[in-house]
């Protein structure tokens, strides 16, 4: 059984190991002990704090193998992108240059430096142990965050965004960077990335060209890199795409990778999830498995509704209506894993959205 929960300082050695493995581009997981300690500490405060409106909180989750204590993945949410400052992106724009007189109409693609995504909540820090890339765990890692957002709406903005790594070669050279950023920085992309992964990306962004970049003036490799995803980013990207994130509008100002965005309530997980009461009356593993075989149980992402004590996992669940209203049943083991008791509320969403029209029994 795997459980997603807030990161603790005791996780540091394992997180450090993950950070060391993670590719260039996952800037929110810096391979630097002090910064990781800060990240975990800030996250603990964030989960514990009473928050009225989204601010500088940054939530950092780890995915743990409950049996072994091994951490196999991370994910996070920053409550407000560019908090206290600005969050920079390039916005894809089409400028129509037209003249009726000359019977010409040209569509010119330009990148416009903008702060549009400032204040959006930002999905960050996605990492999964490659051994589990083909399992259901990436879904848990990415989407359980959305159950947390659904429960804790006041902690987050109405809109979410997520940066995705852009293309670069084996040495980390980004064609987009070489054609744009390098002209102003005179340094390599990884070097600039490293500088920006720390205290403030804004700091770097302010050195980027402030005027729009006319795409036709860029070399072919840089043009192709605009909105192009690094192969390492395909898995988390595809999950976000399935959720309904939009990828056409914004790109990263450094490597041209797609920055996706969406309104919280339009996301599939948020739309399909239900907040229901856990019923322990007939909940045990045997019965859930029998129900699954009978086609009633649905493999689901199940999260409790706590903040500091947030837990989420994947397990078969059966829905029903009882005297107390909508209920869900799942195994006692699952209940223990996500730390809930009979009568507690949980948020549940089917792992496979096709099965969201759950059979509802009458109890």
């Amino acid at each position, binding site marked *: 059984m795997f459980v997603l929960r807030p990161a603790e300082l005791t996780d540091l050695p394992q997180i450090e190991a993950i950070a060391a493995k993670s590719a260039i581009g996952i800037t929110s997981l810096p391979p630097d002990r002090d910064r990781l300690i800060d990240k975990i500490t800030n996250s603990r405060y964030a989960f514990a704090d009473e928050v009225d409106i989204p601010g500088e909180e940054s939530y950092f989750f780890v995915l743990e193998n409950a049996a072994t204590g091994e951490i196999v993945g991370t994910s996070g949410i920053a409550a407000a992108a560019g908090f206290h400052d600005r969050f920079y992106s390039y916005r894809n724009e089409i400028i129509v240059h037209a*003249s009726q007189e*000359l019977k010409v109409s*040209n569509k*010119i693609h*330009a990148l416009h430096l903008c702060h549009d995504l400032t204040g959006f909540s930002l999905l960050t820090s996605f990492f999964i142990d490659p051994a589990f890339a083909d399992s259901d765990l990436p879904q848990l890692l990415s989407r359980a965050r959305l159950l947390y957002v659904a429960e804790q709406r006041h902690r987050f903005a109405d809109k979410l965004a997520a940066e995705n790594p852009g293309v670069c070669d084996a040495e980390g050279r980004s064609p987009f960077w070489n054609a744009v950023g390098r002209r102003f920085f005179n340094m390599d992309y990884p070097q600039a990335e490293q500088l920006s992964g720390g205290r403030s990306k804004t700091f770097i962004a302010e050195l980027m060209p402030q*005027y729009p970049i006319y795409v036709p003036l860029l070399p072919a490799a840089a043009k192709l890199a605009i909105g192009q995803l690094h192969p390492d980013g395909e898995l988390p990207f595809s999950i976000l795409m399935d959720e309904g994130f939009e990828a056409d509008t914004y790109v990263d100002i450094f490597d041209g990778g797609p920055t996706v965005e969406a309104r919280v309530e339009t996301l599939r997980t948020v739309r399909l999830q239900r907040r229901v009461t856990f019923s322990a009356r007939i909940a045990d593993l045997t019965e859930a498995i029998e129900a699954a075989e009978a086609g009633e149980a649905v493999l689901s992402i199940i999260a409790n509704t706590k903040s500091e004590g947030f837990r989420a996992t994947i397990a078969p669940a059966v829905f029903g209506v009882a005297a107390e209203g909508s209920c869900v049943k799942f195994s006692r083991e699952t209940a223990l894993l996500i730390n809930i008791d009979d009568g507690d509320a949980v948020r549940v969403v089917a792992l496979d959205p096709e099965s969201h029209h759950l059979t509802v029994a009458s109890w």
Partner: protein
Amino acid sequence: MVRSIRRDDLAALMALVGETGVGLTTLPNNEGLLRGRIEASLASFAGTAEKADEQWVFVMEDIAAARLVGICAIAGAVGLREPWYSYRVGTVVHASRELGIFTRTPTLFLSNDHTGASELCSLFLAPDYRVGRNGALLSKSRFMFMAEFSDRFSRKVIAELRGVSDSAGRSPFWESLGRHFFSMDFAEADYLTGIGKKSFVAELMPKHPLYSSFLSKEAQAVIGETHELTRPARRLLEQEGFRYEGHVDIFDAGPALESNLEDIDAIKKSSSQVVQALSVVAEASSAVMLISNARMSDFRVGLGRCIVTSDGVTLDPDVAQALDITVGDAVRLVALRPAERAASGERGARGSRG
């Protein structure tokens, strides 16, 4: 002799323009347009043109051969009918002390800064006449007109010089910039400009500032540079005090030279005199002078020698004949070569203008 253009110059002008090739934007090889320019010029000389349309076209005539060999013009005020575009070459600095970065990027800002300026334009001299003082006479003749009728002109005077292009008319700047926005050759864009469609073309060009570092190396190298064949013209203007102040043409990045009217050396140092006598002036007694009559509608400028005294000026009879003046008429004088011009006032009465 340089004189104001006449209606019957059209055929000779067409023949001359056929020799210009690509790049002389304001002289399109198009009879209708040339006729239009002549008419606009005649209206300007007659004082009936509107400010926005005023233009004065002059032709250089080889009197002995009775041949039209050059043309030049002044536009009274550009950009009053349609927007006048140029790129201002500015600088954007990206700096961070902390990162040890200091990058200075030349940046092109689309501007209408020259709106309302008077423009020297359409200078062309037949190749076989590009000898001796002909080029200087043709170019500088306009300053005599501007000095005489200075109230017709704006304080700011500009001259756009042809930018760099190869023998096939390919402009590296256009290839790197304009072509992306407007799929046509420079020659075609230039022609459209000449026939009065420059603002249409300009409206298809990028409106946002452009970091020049995004252009090809060849394009960056020609910003503010003058076409090889136009360099003598540039030198003549620079001698008179014109300077490149960072404005370039939006198509070929050729420089716009600028000066205030009163700072143009030939204007500043010219003087208005009355013809006192006509007699042959010895070569040693005078520098070669630009000499013009004071008539707007039959303006004439020639080169000659003269002697100035407190009573007036003595001119060669040949010059007087060419300028169609006689004793008692007003003339304007200035030495052709700036080095031979006396400091202002030395020639005595600078006279009132016109």
